[in-house]
Protein backbone atom coordinates (compact mmCIF):
# COMPACT_ATOMS: atom_id res chain seq x y z
CA UNK A 1 0.00 0.00 0.00
CA UNK A 2 1.27 3.47 -0.87
CA UNK A 3 2.24 5.69 2.04
CA UNK A 4 -0.02 8.49 0.83
CA UNK A 5 -2.99 6.18 1.40
CA UNK A 6 -2.05 4.91 4.83
CA UNK A 7 -4.55 6.27 7.31
CA UNK A 8 -3.57 6.11 10.97
CA UNK A 9 -6.13 5.15 13.57
CA UNK A 10 -6.80 7.49 16.47
CA UNK A 11 -5.11 5.30 19.08
CA UNK A 12 -2.12 4.72 16.82
CA UNK A 13 -1.86 8.44 16.11
CA UNK A 14 -1.46 9.12 19.82
CA UNK A 15 1.25 6.48 20.07
CA UNK A 16 3.10 7.64 16.95
CA UNK A 17 2.87 11.28 17.99
CA UNK A 18 4.37 10.65 21.42
CA UNK A 19 7.23 8.52 20.08
CA UNK A 20 9.60 11.32 18.96
CA UNK A 21 8.89 13.29 22.14
CA UNK A 22 9.69 10.28 24.32
CA UNK A 23 12.81 9.68 22.27
CA UNK A 24 14.00 13.25 22.88
CA UNK A 25 13.37 12.88 26.63
CA UNK A 26 15.32 9.63 26.72
CA UNK A 27 18.23 11.15 24.79
CA UNK A 28 18.26 14.08 27.21
CA UNK A 29 18.20 11.80 30.27
CA UNK A 30 21.05 9.65 28.93
CA UNK A 31 23.15 12.72 28.17
CA UNK A 32 22.39 14.32 31.55
CA UNK A 33 23.19 11.09 33.39
CA UNK A 34 26.52 10.70 31.59
CA UNK A 35 27.49 14.31 32.35
CA UNK A 36 26.54 13.84 36.00
CA UNK A 37 28.59 10.65 36.14
CA UNK A 38 31.63 12.71 35.12
CA UNK A 39 30.79 15.76 37.22
CA UNK A 40 28.09 15.48 39.93
CA UNK A 41 27.83 19.31 40.16
CA UNK A 42 27.02 19.74 36.45
CA UNK A 43 24.62 22.62 35.81
CA UNK A 44 24.24 22.47 32.04
CA UNK A 45 22.00 19.40 31.80
CA UNK A 46 20.23 19.12 35.18
CA UNK A 47 18.55 15.88 36.20
CA UNK A 48 14.76 15.79 36.71
CA UNK A 49 15.22 15.61 40.49
CA UNK A 50 17.13 18.89 40.58
CA UNK A 51 14.56 20.55 38.36
CA UNK A 52 11.69 19.39 40.55
CA UNK A 53 13.50 20.65 43.63
CA UNK A 54 14.20 24.16 42.33
CA UNK A 55 10.76 24.43 40.74
CA UNK A 56 8.93 23.42 43.91
CA UNK A 57 10.85 26.15 45.71
CA UNK A 58 9.63 28.68 43.14
CA UNK A 59 6.10 27.31 43.11
CA UNK A 60 5.30 26.73 46.76
CA UNK A 61 7.70 28.79 48.89
CA UNK A 62 7.10 32.54 49.12
CA UNK A 63 10.00 34.68 47.98
CA UNK A 64 11.86 36.14 50.97
CA UNK A 65 12.03 39.61 49.48
CA UNK A 66 8.59 40.08 47.94
CA UNK A 67 6.60 37.40 49.78
CA UNK A 68 5.16 36.16 46.46
CA UNK A 69 5.07 32.69 45.00
CA UNK A 70 7.54 33.54 42.25
CA UNK A 71 6.44 31.03 39.61
CA UNK A 72 2.77 31.95 39.82
CA UNK A 73 3.49 35.66 39.97
CA UNK A 74 5.61 35.31 36.80
CA UNK A 75 2.92 33.31 35.03
CA UNK A 76 0.18 35.75 35.99
CA UNK A 77 2.19 38.81 34.94
CA UNK A 78 3.14 37.31 31.58
CA UNK A 79 -0.34 36.01 30.80
CA UNK A 80 -1.82 39.38 31.68
CA UNK A 81 0.51 41.19 29.27
CA UNK A 82 -0.03 38.60 26.57
CA UNK A 83 -3.80 38.61 27.05
CA UNK A 84 -4.15 42.39 26.95
CA UNK A 85 -1.80 42.65 23.97
CA UNK A 86 -3.55 39.90 22.05
CA UNK A 87 -6.98 41.28 22.99
CA UNK A 88 -6.20 44.78 21.76
CA UNK A 89 -4.66 43.39 18.55
CA UNK A 90 -7.66 41.16 17.89
CA UNK A 91 -10.09 44.02 18.39
CA UNK A 92 -8.04 46.23 16.07
CA UNK A 93 -7.78 43.47 13.48
CA UNK A 94 -11.53 42.99 13.51
CA UNK A 95 -12.50 46.64 13.26
CA UNK A 96 -9.74 47.94 10.98
CA UNK A 97 -9.50 44.75 8.93
CA UNK A 98 -13.24 44.69 8.31
CA UNK A 99 -13.35 48.34 7.24
CA UNK A 100 -10.26 47.95 5.03
CA UNK A 101 -11.60 44.81 3.43
CA UNK A 102 -15.11 45.90 2.58
CA UNK A 103 -14.96 49.68 2.05
CA UNK A 104 -12.80 50.64 -0.97
CA UNK A 105 -12.31 54.29 0.10
CA UNK A 106 -11.04 53.21 3.52
CA UNK A 107 -8.74 50.68 1.84
CA UNK A 108 -7.37 53.36 -0.48
CA UNK A 109 -6.76 55.74 2.43
CA UNK A 110 -5.32 53.48 5.12
CA UNK A 111 -4.07 50.43 3.21
CA UNK A 112 -0.59 51.83 2.48
CA UNK A 113 -0.20 52.99 6.11
CA UNK A 114 -1.02 49.54 7.49
CA UNK A 115 1.36 47.92 4.99
CA UNK A 116 4.05 50.41 5.95
CA UNK A 117 3.70 49.69 9.67
CA UNK A 118 3.58 45.95 9.02
CA UNK A 119 6.99 45.85 7.33
CA UNK A 120 8.82 47.64 10.20
CA UNK A 121 10.57 45.08 12.46
CA UNK A 122 8.75 45.61 15.78
CA UNK A 123 11.88 45.11 17.87
CA UNK A 124 13.37 48.15 16.10
CA UNK A 125 10.50 50.16 17.59
CA UNK A 126 11.15 48.90 21.12
CA UNK A 127 13.53 51.78 22.06
CA UNK A 128 10.93 54.27 20.82
CA UNK A 129 8.25 52.57 22.87
CA UNK A 130 10.45 52.59 25.98
CA UNK A 131 11.30 56.27 25.48
CA UNK A 132 7.72 57.30 24.74
CA UNK A 133 5.85 55.07 27.17
CA UNK A 134 8.38 54.44 29.93
CA UNK A 135 9.56 51.06 31.14
CA UNK A 136 6.21 49.99 32.63
CA UNK A 137 3.52 47.61 31.42
CA UNK A 138 2.31 49.94 28.65
CA UNK A 139 5.51 49.64 26.62
CA UNK A 140 5.50 45.82 26.80
CA UNK A 141 1.87 45.56 25.75
CA UNK A 142 2.46 48.16 23.04
CA UNK A 143 5.32 46.05 21.67
CA UNK A 144 3.05 43.02 21.38
CA UNK A 145 0.34 45.10 19.70
CA UNK A 146 2.78 46.74 17.27
CA UNK A 147 4.24 43.35 16.54
CA UNK A 148 1.11 41.34 15.76
CA UNK A 149 -1.75 43.74 15.01
CA UNK A 150 -0.63 44.82 11.50
CA UNK A 151 -0.23 41.23 10.33
CA UNK A 152 -3.64 40.29 11.76
CA UNK A 153 -5.26 43.38 10.23
CA UNK A 154 -3.85 42.55 6.80
CA UNK A 155 -4.95 38.94 7.11
CA UNK A 156 -8.54 39.86 7.99
CA UNK A 157 -8.67 42.59 5.35
CA UNK A 158 -7.44 40.18 2.67
CA UNK A 159 -9.94 37.53 3.77
CA UNK A 160 -12.88 39.97 3.69
CA UNK A 161 -11.75 41.35 0.34
CA UNK A 162 -11.69 37.83 -1.06
CA UNK A 163 -15.35 37.15 -0.21
CA UNK A 164 -17.17 36.34 -3.46
CA UNK A 165 -18.42 39.51 -5.10
CA UNK A 166 -21.70 37.68 -5.73
CA UNK A 167 -22.43 37.59 -2.01
CA UNK A 168 -21.95 41.34 -1.61
CA UNK A 169 -24.18 41.99 -4.65
CA UNK A 170 -26.79 39.55 -3.41
CA UNK A 171 -26.90 41.23 0.01
CA UNK A 172 -27.48 44.58 -1.67
CA UNK A 173 -30.31 43.22 -3.80
CA UNK A 174 -31.82 42.05 -0.51
CA UNK A 175 -31.84 45.65 0.70
CA UNK A 176 -28.65 45.71 2.79
CA UNK A 177 -26.77 48.97 3.38
CA UNK A 178 -22.97 49.20 3.64
CA UNK A 179 -23.25 48.85 7.40
CA UNK A 180 -25.49 45.80 7.11
CA UNK A 181 -23.18 44.18 4.55
CA UNK A 182 -20.39 44.71 7.08
CA UNK A 183 -22.11 43.30 10.15
CA UNK A 184 -24.28 40.63 8.56
CA UNK A 185 -22.14 39.34 5.68
CA UNK A 186 -18.49 40.25 6.29
CA UNK A 187 -18.24 40.17 10.09
CA UNK A 188 -19.60 36.66 10.68
CA UNK A 189 -17.46 35.25 7.89
CA UNK A 190 -14.38 37.05 9.27
CA UNK A 191 -14.80 35.54 12.75
CA UNK A 192 -13.39 32.03 12.09
CA UNK A 193 -10.53 33.66 10.22
CA UNK A 194 -9.97 35.95 13.21
CA UNK A 195 -9.57 33.00 15.57
CA UNK A 196 -7.19 31.45 13.06
CA UNK A 197 -5.20 34.70 12.88
CA UNK A 198 -5.04 34.74 16.71
CA UNK A 199 -3.59 31.23 16.69
CA UNK A 200 -0.94 32.22 14.18
CA UNK A 201 -0.20 35.45 16.08
CA UNK A 202 0.34 33.63 19.37
CA UNK A 203 3.88 32.58 18.41
CA UNK A 204 5.12 36.09 17.55
CA UNK A 205 3.21 37.48 20.56
CA UNK A 206 5.23 35.24 22.88
CA UNK A 207 8.46 36.31 21.16
CA UNK A 208 7.70 39.99 21.71
CA UNK A 209 6.56 39.37 25.28
CA UNK A 210 9.75 37.52 26.25
CA UNK A 211 11.88 40.16 24.48
CA UNK A 212 10.21 43.03 26.31
CA UNK A 213 10.44 41.21 29.64
CA UNK A 214 14.08 40.31 29.08
CA UNK A 215 15.02 43.96 28.55
CA UNK A 216 13.06 45.78 31.25
CA UNK A 217 10.90 44.09 33.83
CA UNK A 218 10.81 42.87 37.43
CA UNK A 219 8.40 39.97 37.06
CA UNK A 220 7.37 37.62 34.27
CA UNK A 221 8.35 34.33 32.68
CA UNK A 222 10.79 35.94 30.24
CA UNK A 223 12.29 38.10 32.99
CA UNK A 224 12.91 35.03 35.19
CA UNK A 225 14.57 33.04 32.42
CA UNK A 226 16.95 35.87 31.60
CA UNK A 227 17.58 36.54 35.31
CA UNK A 228 18.60 33.00 36.27
CA UNK A 229 20.70 32.69 33.10
CA UNK A 230 23.35 34.60 35.05
CA UNK A 231 23.66 31.64 37.42
CA UNK A 232 23.53 29.01 34.65
CA UNK A 233 20.32 27.76 36.29
CA UNK A 234 19.23 25.38 33.60
CA UNK A 235 17.16 23.63 36.28
CA UNK A 236 14.85 26.67 36.24
CA UNK A 237 15.16 27.68 32.60
CA UNK A 238 14.17 24.29 31.16
CA UNK A 239 10.95 23.89 33.21
CA UNK A 240 10.03 27.50 32.45
CA UNK A 241 10.45 26.90 28.73
CA UNK A 242 8.37 23.72 29.00
CA UNK A 243 5.70 25.67 30.90
CA UNK A 244 5.61 28.36 28.21
CA UNK A 245 5.24 25.65 25.57
CA UNK A 246 2.40 24.06 27.53
CA UNK A 247 0.60 27.40 27.94
CA UNK A 248 0.97 28.07 24.21
CA UNK A 249 -0.40 24.64 23.32
CA UNK A 250 -3.39 25.09 25.64
CA UNK A 251 -4.19 28.46 24.06
CA UNK A 252 -3.91 27.00 20.56
CA UNK A 253 -6.22 24.10 21.41
CA UNK A 254 -8.72 26.41 23.07
CA UNK A 255 -8.87 28.66 20.00
CA UNK A 256 -9.31 25.70 17.66
CA UNK A 257 -12.04 24.28 19.89
CA UNK A 258 -13.80 27.65 20.10
CA UNK A 259 -13.73 28.04 16.34
CA UNK A 260 -15.24 24.60 15.75
CA UNK A 261 -17.81 25.13 18.46
CA UNK A 262 -18.90 28.65 17.55
CA UNK A 263 -18.61 28.50 13.75
CA UNK A 264 -19.42 24.94 12.67
CA UNK A 265 -20.38 26.15 9.18
CA UNK A 266 -16.76 27.16 8.55
CA UNK A 267 -15.38 23.69 9.21
CA UNK A 268 -16.60 21.63 6.29
CA UNK A 269 -19.83 19.85 5.61
CA UNK A 270 -19.43 17.22 8.27
CA UNK A 271 -20.57 19.22 11.27
Amino acid at each position, binding site marked *: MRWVNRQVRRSDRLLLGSLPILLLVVVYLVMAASRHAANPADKILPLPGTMAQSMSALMFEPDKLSGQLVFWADTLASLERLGIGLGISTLMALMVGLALGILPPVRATFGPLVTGIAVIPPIALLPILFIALGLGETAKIALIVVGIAPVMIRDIAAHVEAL*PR*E*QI*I*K*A*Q*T*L*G*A*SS*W*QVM*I*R*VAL*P*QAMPRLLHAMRLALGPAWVFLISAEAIASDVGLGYRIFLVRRYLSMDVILPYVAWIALLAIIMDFTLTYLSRRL*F*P*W*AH*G*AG*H
Partner: protein
Amino acid sequence: MSALLSLRDVWVEYGDRIVIEKLDLDIAAQAFVSIVGPSGAGKSSFLRLILGQEAPTRGTVLLDGIPLVPECGPDRGVVFQRYSVFPHLSVLRNTMFGLECPKAPLSGRLFGSARRAARDEAVAMLEAVGLGDSLDLYPAQMSGGMQQRLAIAQALVQRPRILLLDEPFGALDPGIRADMHALITRLWRDYSLTIIMVTHDIREAFSLGTRVLTLDKRRHDPHAPHRYGATVVYDLPLRNRTDEADCESDSITIDDIGNN
Protein backbone atom coordinates in the same frame (compact mmCIF):
# COMPACT_ATOMS: atom_id res chain seq x y z
CA MET B 1 -47.79 46.50 -24.04
CA SER B 2 -46.51 48.30 -20.99
CA ALA B 3 -42.74 48.26 -20.67
CA LEU B 4 -41.43 47.54 -17.20
CA LEU B 5 -37.80 47.88 -18.21
CA SER B 6 -36.55 49.99 -21.10
CA LEU B 7 -33.07 50.42 -22.50
CA ARG B 8 -32.60 53.45 -24.73
CA ASP B 9 -29.54 53.58 -27.01
CA VAL B 10 -27.32 51.90 -24.41
CA TRP B 11 -23.57 51.57 -24.96
CA VAL B 12 -21.13 49.83 -22.64
CA GLU B 13 -17.43 50.49 -23.21
CA TYR B 14 -14.35 49.53 -21.24
CA GLY B 15 -11.57 51.83 -22.38
CA ASP B 16 -11.56 51.52 -26.17
CA ARG B 17 -13.26 48.12 -26.08
CA ILE B 18 -16.94 48.29 -26.97
CA VAL B 19 -18.96 45.52 -25.38
CA ILE B 20 -22.55 46.58 -26.06
CA GLU B 21 -23.52 49.03 -28.75
CA LYS B 22 -26.78 50.79 -29.52
CA LEU B 23 -29.05 48.54 -27.53
CA ASP B 24 -32.73 49.46 -27.62
CA LEU B 25 -35.04 47.16 -25.76
CA ASP B 26 -38.35 47.08 -23.96
CA ILE B 27 -39.23 44.31 -21.58
CA ALA B 28 -42.85 43.91 -20.59
CA ALA B 29 -44.04 43.07 -17.10
CA GLN B 30 -44.47 39.33 -16.45
CA ALA B 31 -42.28 38.36 -19.37
CA PHE B 32 -39.80 35.50 -19.12
CA VAL B 33 -36.90 36.68 -21.25
CA SER B 34 -34.10 34.28 -22.07
CA ILE B 35 -30.81 35.75 -23.21
CA VAL B 36 -28.44 33.62 -25.26
CA GLY B 37 -25.36 34.39 -27.26
CA PRO B 38 -21.74 33.34 -27.68
CA SER B 39 -19.21 33.88 -24.93
CA GLY B 40 -17.90 37.42 -24.80
CA ALA B 41 -21.02 38.85 -26.45
CA GLY B 42 -21.87 40.98 -23.45
CA LYS B 43 -24.45 38.76 -21.75
CA SER B 44 -22.88 39.33 -18.36
CA SER B 45 -22.43 43.03 -19.01
CA PHE B 46 -26.09 43.23 -19.95
CA LEU B 47 -27.07 41.58 -16.69
CA ARG B 48 -24.75 43.81 -14.64
CA LEU B 49 -26.32 46.80 -16.36
CA ILE B 50 -29.84 45.86 -15.29
CA LEU B 51 -28.62 44.81 -11.87
CA GLY B 52 -27.08 48.24 -11.41
CA GLN B 53 -23.65 46.80 -10.82
CA GLU B 54 -22.37 49.09 -13.55
CA ALA B 55 -23.67 52.12 -15.41
CA PRO B 56 -24.00 52.40 -19.21
CA THR B 57 -21.32 54.52 -20.87
CA ARG B 58 -24.05 56.15 -22.91
CA GLY B 59 -27.82 55.85 -22.96
CA THR B 60 -30.32 55.20 -20.20
CA VAL B 61 -31.89 52.25 -18.48
CA LEU B 62 -35.41 52.94 -17.23
CA LEU B 63 -37.34 50.90 -14.69
CA ASP B 64 -41.01 51.96 -14.66
CA GLY B 65 -39.92 55.01 -16.62
CA ILE B 66 -37.44 56.12 -13.96
CA PRO B 67 -33.69 56.03 -14.74
CA LEU B 68 -31.83 53.38 -12.74
CA VAL B 69 -29.14 54.48 -10.33
CA PRO B 70 -25.98 52.43 -10.91
CA GLU B 71 -26.31 50.55 -7.64
CA CYS B 72 -27.98 47.31 -6.71
CA GLY B 73 -31.34 47.65 -5.01
CA PRO B 74 -34.11 45.52 -3.55
CA ASP B 75 -36.33 46.00 -6.62
CA ARG B 76 -34.10 43.68 -8.68
CA GLY B 77 -33.42 40.23 -7.24
CA VAL B 78 -30.66 38.02 -8.54
CA VAL B 79 -29.60 34.37 -8.56
CA PHE B 80 -26.03 33.67 -9.68
CA GLN B 81 -24.62 30.37 -10.83
CA ARG B 82 -22.65 30.10 -7.58
CA TYR B 83 -22.00 31.94 -4.31
CA SER B 84 -25.53 33.36 -4.13
CA VAL B 85 -26.22 32.16 -0.59
CA PHE B 86 -24.49 33.06 2.64
CA PRO B 87 -22.48 30.09 3.94
CA HIS B 88 -22.62 31.28 7.56
CA LEU B 89 -26.41 31.37 7.78
CA SER B 90 -28.86 28.49 7.96
CA VAL B 91 -31.49 28.08 5.25
CA LEU B 92 -34.07 29.93 7.33
CA ARG B 93 -31.74 32.79 8.27
CA ASN B 94 -30.59 33.07 4.67
CA THR B 95 -34.18 33.60 3.59
CA MET B 96 -34.99 35.97 6.44
CA PHE B 97 -32.00 38.17 5.54
CA GLY B 98 -33.97 40.16 2.97
CA LEU B 99 -36.85 40.70 5.39
CA GLU B 100 -34.61 41.79 8.24
CA CYS B 101 -32.36 44.29 6.49
CA PRO B 102 -34.87 46.98 5.47
CA LYS B 103 -36.69 46.88 8.82
CA ALA B 104 -33.67 46.89 11.14
CA PRO B 105 -31.18 49.40 9.71
CA LEU B 106 -28.84 49.34 12.71
CA SER B 107 -28.68 45.77 13.94
CA GLY B 108 -29.78 44.02 10.75
CA ARG B 109 -31.79 41.63 12.93
CA LEU B 110 -35.41 41.49 13.99
CA PHE B 111 -36.72 40.54 17.42
CA GLY B 112 -40.03 39.55 18.96
CA SER B 113 -43.20 39.60 16.91
CA ALA B 114 -41.54 41.21 13.89
CA ARG B 115 -39.09 38.31 13.89
CA ARG B 116 -41.88 35.74 14.10
CA ALA B 117 -43.71 37.40 11.21
CA ALA B 118 -40.53 37.38 9.11
CA ARG B 119 -39.92 33.76 10.07
CA ASP B 120 -43.42 32.71 8.96
CA GLU B 121 -43.03 34.54 5.66
CA ALA B 122 -39.63 32.93 5.07
CA VAL B 123 -40.95 29.46 5.92
CA ALA B 124 -43.86 29.90 3.50
CA MET B 125 -41.41 30.91 0.76
CA LEU B 126 -39.13 27.97 1.52
CA GLU B 127 -42.05 25.58 1.35
CA ALA B 128 -42.93 27.02 -2.05
CA VAL B 129 -39.47 26.11 -3.37
CA GLY B 130 -39.49 22.71 -1.66
CA LEU B 131 -37.10 23.39 1.21
CA GLY B 132 -39.70 23.25 3.98
CA ASP B 133 -37.91 20.35 5.66
CA SER B 134 -34.40 21.80 5.54
CA LEU B 135 -34.81 25.00 7.55
CA ASP B 136 -31.80 24.47 9.84
CA LEU B 137 -29.29 23.16 7.31
CA TYR B 138 -26.27 25.20 6.31
CA PRO B 139 -25.55 25.69 2.57
CA ALA B 140 -22.42 23.51 2.79
CA GLN B 141 -24.63 20.59 3.80
CA MET B 142 -26.87 20.90 0.75
CA SER B 143 -26.57 19.82 -2.88
CA GLY B 144 -26.12 22.33 -5.68
CA GLY B 145 -29.81 22.11 -6.62
CA MET B 146 -30.94 22.79 -3.06
CA GLN B 147 -28.60 25.76 -2.84
CA GLN B 148 -30.13 27.21 -6.00
CA ARG B 149 -33.63 26.66 -4.60
CA LEU B 150 -32.52 28.56 -1.52
CA ALA B 151 -31.03 31.34 -3.63
CA ILE B 152 -34.35 31.68 -5.48
CA ALA B 153 -36.37 31.71 -2.24
CA GLN B 154 -33.98 34.29 -0.80
CA ALA B 155 -34.49 36.57 -3.79
CA LEU B 156 -38.27 36.07 -4.08
CA VAL B 157 -39.06 36.75 -0.42
CA GLN B 158 -38.03 40.32 -1.21
CA ARG B 159 -40.79 40.54 -3.92
CA PRO B 160 -38.50 42.08 -6.56
CA ARG B 161 -39.93 43.78 -9.66
CA ILE B 162 -37.50 41.83 -11.81
CA LEU B 163 -35.73 38.54 -11.09
CA LEU B 164 -32.38 38.18 -12.82
CA LEU B 165 -30.96 34.72 -13.31
CA ASP B 166 -27.31 34.39 -14.34
CA GLU B 167 -26.88 30.85 -15.67
CA PRO B 168 -28.71 29.64 -12.57
CA PHE B 169 -28.85 25.98 -13.58
CA GLY B 170 -25.55 25.78 -15.44
CA ALA B 171 -23.75 23.88 -12.66
CA LEU B 172 -26.53 21.34 -12.05
CA ASP B 173 -26.83 17.85 -13.49
CA PRO B 174 -29.63 17.23 -16.03
CA GLY B 175 -32.15 15.54 -13.69
CA ILE B 176 -31.93 18.29 -11.10
CA ARG B 177 -32.04 20.86 -13.87
CA ALA B 178 -35.38 19.53 -15.10
CA ASP B 179 -36.81 19.83 -11.57
CA MET B 180 -35.52 23.36 -11.34
CA HIS B 181 -37.09 24.26 -14.71
CA ALA B 182 -40.45 23.05 -13.43
CA LEU B 183 -39.96 25.02 -10.20
CA ILE B 184 -39.02 28.30 -11.84
CA THR B 185 -41.92 27.99 -14.31
CA ARG B 186 -44.35 27.42 -11.45
CA LEU B 187 -42.97 30.30 -9.39
CA TRP B 188 -43.01 32.59 -12.42
CA ARG B 189 -46.70 31.85 -12.96
CA ASP B 190 -47.77 31.84 -9.27
CA TYR B 191 -46.01 35.06 -8.30
CA SER B 192 -46.48 36.86 -11.66
CA LEU B 193 -42.75 37.44 -11.91
CA THR B 194 -40.76 39.23 -14.55
CA ILE B 195 -37.69 37.13 -15.22
CA ILE B 196 -34.57 37.82 -17.25
CA MET B 197 -32.40 34.73 -17.59
CA VAL B 198 -28.94 34.52 -19.12
CA THR B 199 -28.12 31.00 -20.22
CA HIS B 200 -25.76 28.98 -22.40
CA ASP B 201 -28.35 26.29 -22.92
CA ILE B 202 -30.37 27.09 -26.05
CA ARG B 203 -32.94 24.39 -25.30
CA GLU B 204 -33.48 25.80 -21.82
CA ALA B 205 -33.81 29.31 -23.28
CA PHE B 206 -36.60 28.22 -25.64
CA SER B 207 -38.44 25.87 -23.30
CA LEU B 208 -38.66 28.36 -20.42
CA GLY B 209 -38.82 31.77 -22.04
CA THR B 210 -41.71 33.73 -23.51
CA ARG B 211 -39.15 35.68 -25.46
CA VAL B 212 -35.63 34.79 -26.53
CA LEU B 213 -33.04 37.48 -27.17
CA THR B 214 -29.74 36.71 -28.85
CA LEU B 215 -26.87 39.06 -28.18
CA ASP B 216 -24.10 39.11 -30.75
CA LYS B 217 -21.97 41.45 -32.80
CA ARG B 218 -23.64 42.67 -35.98
CA ARG B 219 -20.36 43.70 -37.56
CA HIS B 220 -16.92 42.30 -37.19
CA ASP B 221 -13.61 44.01 -37.99
CA PRO B 222 -10.92 41.32 -38.11
CA HIS B 223 -8.19 43.91 -37.49
CA ALA B 224 -9.87 45.46 -34.47
CA PRO B 225 -12.41 42.96 -33.12
CA HIS B 226 -12.91 44.98 -29.95
CA ARG B 227 -14.21 48.05 -31.78
CA TYR B 228 -17.65 46.64 -32.48
CA GLY B 229 -19.99 45.78 -29.64
CA ALA B 230 -22.83 43.32 -29.37
CA THR B 231 -26.48 44.11 -29.62
CA VAL B 232 -29.74 42.19 -29.97
CA VAL B 233 -29.53 40.30 -33.29
CA TYR B 234 -32.56 38.06 -32.81
CA ASP B 235 -35.65 38.93 -30.79
CA LEU B 236 -38.02 35.98 -30.88
CA PRO B 237 -41.37 36.27 -29.13
CA LEU B 238 -42.63 32.79 -28.26
CA ARG B 239 -46.16 31.63 -27.55
CA ASN B 240 -47.72 33.14 -24.46
CA ARG B 241 -47.13 30.38 -21.99
CA THR B 242 -49.29 31.85 -19.24
CA ASP B 243 -52.33 30.38 -21.03
CA GLU B 244 -50.98 26.87 -21.02
CA ALA B 245 -51.57 24.93 -17.90
CA ASP B 246 -49.65 21.77 -18.57
CA CYS B 247 -46.60 23.16 -20.26
CA GLU B 248 -43.88 21.55 -18.20
CA SER B 249 -45.11 18.03 -18.83
CA ASP B 250 -44.06 17.95 -22.45
CA SER B 251 -41.47 20.63 -23.07
CA ILE B 252 -39.32 20.51 -19.99
CA THR B 253 -37.70 17.14 -20.05
CA ILE B 254 -34.21 15.88 -19.62
CA ASP B 255 -32.31 16.27 -22.82
CA ASP B 256 -31.95 12.70 -23.97
CA ILE B 257 -30.30 13.55 -27.27
CA GLY B 258 -27.35 14.95 -25.41
CA ASN B 259 -26.85 18.08 -27.46
CA ASN B 260 -26.86 20.64 -24.68
